């Protein structure tokens, strides 16, 4: 018994975890009966279904005739884009739009093919101007612009 498709195995595991997780979390809400479905009913049914589907997908990883192309996550862009986004989230309230944009742009630029400091700097300035003009003055969104 050889795992021929790692992708299917991982997908199956993820589905199983989500399905079982939702069903398990739902246990603290009342189920009710079919005629009067409680808040737990639909989620439990769906959760169990998803868990079963997860198992089926995982089984498929063994029984499939030929594996699909190898699994390759794009780690560098993934982590850097996520980091940039989370940094943006963290900086917006205390430090304002301009700084948050800076963090986002630099981190995400690092995640890209070629990182050029001056280009990125220029992009930051241009975007900061554009976004402040568009979102703060144009659309009057209540964003803090500077850290003060």
């Amino acid at each position, binding site marked *: 018994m050889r795992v021929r498709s790692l992708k299917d195995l991982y*997908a199956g595991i993820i589905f199983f975890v989500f399905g079982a997780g939702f069903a398990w979390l739902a246990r603290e809400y009342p189920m009710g009966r079919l005629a009067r479905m409680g808040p737990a009913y639909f989620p439990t049914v769906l959760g169990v279904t998803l868990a079963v589907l997860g198992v089926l997908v995982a089984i498929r990883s063994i029984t499939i005739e030929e594996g699909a192309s190898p699994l390759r996550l794009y780690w560098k862009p993934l982590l850097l884009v996520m980091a940039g986004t989370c940094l943006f989230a963290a900086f917006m309230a205390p430090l304002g739009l301009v700084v948050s944009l800076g963090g986002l742009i630099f981190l995400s630029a690092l995640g890209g093919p070629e990182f050029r400091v001056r280009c990125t700097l220029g992009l930051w300035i241009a975007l900061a101007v554009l976004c402040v003009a568009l979102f703060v003055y144009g659309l009057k969104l209540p964003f803090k612009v500077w850290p003060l």
Partner: protein
Amino acid sequence: MMDLLNHLALGFQVALTPINFLYCLAGSLMGTLIGVLPGIGPTATIAMLLPITFNLPAVSALIMLAGIYYGAQYGGSTTAILVNLPGEASSVVTCLDGHAMQRQGRAGVALATAALGSFFAGCVATVIIAMLAPLLAGVALKFGPTEYFSMMLLGLVAAVILAHGSVLKAVAMVVLGLLLGLVGTDVTSGTTRFDFGIPALSDGIDFVVVAMGLFGIAEIINTLGQKEEREVVAAKVTGLWPSKDDFRMMWKAVFRGTALGSALGILPGGAATLSSFAAYILVQKLAKDPSRFGKGAIEGVAGPESANNAAAQTSFIPMLTLGIPPNSVMALMIGAMMIQGIAPGPQVMTSRPELFWGMIASMWVGNLMLVVLNLPLIGLWVSLLKVPYRMLYPSILAFCCIGVYSLNNNPVDVVMTAFFGLMGHVFTKLDCEPAPLLLGFILGPMMEEYLRRAMLLSRGDATVFLRHPISLAMLILSALLLLLIIAPAIRSKRDEAFQE
């Protein structure tokens, strides 16, 4: 007939007000722009603009978003023809004969063909929507919760069928989407579910967060990881107008593409992309000399381009009349309507006729604008292609983050978007389609409501779904579709079609 004319008159009245005209223009231009640029598509763009639509009047917002969608179909063909780069998935087939024509010095003719074919398709599709929508809405008004539930089930099943990759995984994605949609307050019982004590989650996961994460951020990550360099060769475009011979050869393809596209657009699934592929195959099979294809056959441009535009527009029908999104773009449009406080469904036609007919009329206006504007602006679009992606994607990312943050000024939303970006990337790499998840997410809470009500009315009798004729018909159709896909013969054909 008179009714139809009255409705269309109302529609045009709404669509041609200066402000809506401007929004239509903005949408169409933006759509063309993102259609031209690879790496960003209508789904991500509409997701990004959703927060802005808060502040706009409902009709204007929807007109603009619609313009983005069908504008992208026009834009995609421009780069497909000129630079052999499909800006949109639906333009991939246009690359084949379109770029061949460019190499023969007939780029102008190809572009004009694409534009004219698309315009024709757009006009026909608009008429179809105008005629078909009221009929459908009339039927749907008789629907009870049983019928709605079965219909949504059918919509989800059909979306699974037409998704790429394994059906099993697509179904799992749908179920996952349904579950994620249930996070938040259960309207009927008032319980907050799956919120982990985080107040931000008590209202549920915001739709924009899921859409931007799955389609905007994940798309950027996917593109960044691929180390392809884009070669942009700026070609000179002369001789725009097709000759009489060209017209003679293309009109059949345009008709066929339009017909096929209109039909396929209504079905859930790939809409524009699937239609363009199917149209190419159809036109090739019906041509007198199939060997011309791939070498600059004008039908190879006319057919798919008409099809994808027709499909883009008719895909509005299920969304506007039944409240069922046939693809992810329509799911976002429903999101936009919900943001405006409009509950999508058959009653939209009667409760907000100016919205409904205004949108339909604006589609025609938008098509006209696109034909008139695109041909002169081609040089502009091509030069935009020269902007390196590394300048583009941080900007897109910035707009995504700002957009999400502007929903509630809550950083948790932005972090969740990052998480959905992770999910989107991981799932795409595991060969699981994210679009069914989005559809499930939108329909989840609604399906639960309808199921609950149906069970309440029937006092727990599950056979009610089989006893109501319309519901039964839809369930049988769902089962048939699922069986069809499992049958190996059909499955290999489907895989073949996707591999091309």
